[in-house]
């Protein structure tokens, strides 16, 4: 945790500030950069962004309260991210770790991402050390439990998942300063998971729901993905993609941004094949970058 900058805060003789300059506090924490980055890098997700801003504001005010000597209990920041596959839960968790670190809420700001396999053991007495080891690694940062509902298996009463949950709860309660736990998963299954584990639900202060992307947002996402991979669509390719996305959305196993990524990967494959087929041709930089309409229209969703 960085020491509060006393010069900017206008400190009285006793070491307790009389007034706090929020702007300088904000500038000190550099949290605005992360928030702006979040705004730009992630398309859509308005409710999520609002919530993240709220949390950042709360932490900043807590810090200001501490500077003027008001009571400031560190708020509980365990979170639950619910949403369909590919809506950016992991990505936001990673940013969240950065934001909490900049605001001085966690000391290191790293993200440890685990699933049931990393927490639950295979035989009696294996679970507790395994869970504790993961928790120890996550201390000072954020523990991200993906598909957390797998921890609880009501159909098998001898399942060791319950043991992992109990250890988790204990640490979530007693060592709030040391780590933040984020559980994530699909909406409906998380709801039943919380219903059967009221202790867990009550210890999680922030339930954030990730909405599905609209077709326009997915198109924007495809744009940024291509940019990162240094590809681009030809003008007819843009149209083909515009037709492709709504079609793909109606199909089974649609996973939002992840489906878009997969579609683009397959388009790259076809582009490579197409370029390979016209051997002997001199390929320009442009040729290597451009994905044509045919590369997208060859997809199975158009048939």
């Amino acid at each position: 945790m960085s020491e509060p900058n006393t010069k900017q805060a206008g400190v009285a003789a006793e070491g307790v500030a009389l007034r706090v300059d929020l702007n300088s506090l904000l500038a000190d924490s550099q949290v605005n950069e992360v928030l702006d980055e979040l705004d730009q890098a992630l398309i859509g997700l308005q409710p999520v962004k609002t919530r993240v801003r709220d949390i950042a504001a709360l932490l900043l005010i807590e810090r200001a309260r501490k500077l003027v000597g008001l009571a400031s209990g560190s708020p509980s920041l365990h979170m639950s991210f619910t949403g369909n596959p590919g809506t950016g839960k992991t990505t936001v968790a990673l940013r969240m770790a950065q934001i909490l670190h900049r605001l001085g809420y966690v000391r290191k700001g790293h993200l440890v991402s685990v699933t049931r396999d990393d927490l639950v053991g295979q035989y009696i007495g294996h679970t507790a050390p395994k869970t504790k080891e993961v928790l120890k690694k996550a201390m000072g940062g954020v523990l991200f439990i993906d598909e957390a509902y797998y921890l609880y298996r009501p159909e098998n009463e001898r399942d060791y998942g319950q043991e992992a949950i109990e250890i988790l709860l204990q640490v979530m309660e007693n060592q709030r300063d040391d780590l933040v736990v984020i559980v994530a998963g699909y909406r409906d299954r998380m709801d039943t998971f919380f219903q059967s584990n009221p202790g867990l639900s009550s210890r999680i202060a922030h339930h954030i729901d990730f909405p599905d992307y609209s077709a326009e947002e997915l198109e924007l996402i495809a744009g940024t993905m291509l940019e990162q991979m240094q590809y681009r669509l030809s003008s007819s390719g843009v149209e083909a993609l515009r037709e492709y996305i709504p079609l793909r959305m109606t199909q089974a196993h649609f996973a939002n941004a992840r489906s878009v990524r997969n579609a683009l990967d397959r388009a790259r494959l076809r582009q490579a094949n197409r370029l390979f087929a016209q051997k002997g041709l001199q390929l320009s930089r442009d040729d290597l970058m451009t994905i044509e309409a045919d590369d997208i229209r060859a997809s199975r969703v158009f048939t």
Partner: protein
Amino acid sequence: MKITQGTFSFLPDLTDKEITAQIQYALDQGWAVSVEYTDDPHPRNYFWEMWGNPMFDLKDAAGALTEVLAARKAHPSNYIRVMAFDATLGFETTRLSFIVNRPKDEPGYGLVRQEVDGRNIRYTIESYAAKAPEGRRYT
């Protein structure tokens, strides 16, 4: 007689905050921290009991401190030390070791003189506490 072995042993006992700071230093160097305990702290007894496995891939000292506290709770009247292992090629050894818990009463060591080969004398030290069987020392 206060037993002095390992780093910081001539200083007053470290507080939990100081222990945390030292562990954090070790982690920042990339060393793996482990906790060990014994009721036989003879200077030649290198092999103390392990309290759990060495902790690799830790980022923050809070995790290791929970183990120190747990070990202290289970063995309040034993010697407990924190060790930091450096896996760098060329070192591959313990770089830091310090005692984080000791019994309230440390009776110390007696000098034993053994007559050998006529008038020759061999000297050795013997712990008063270690005369009791294992598990019943320092109670």
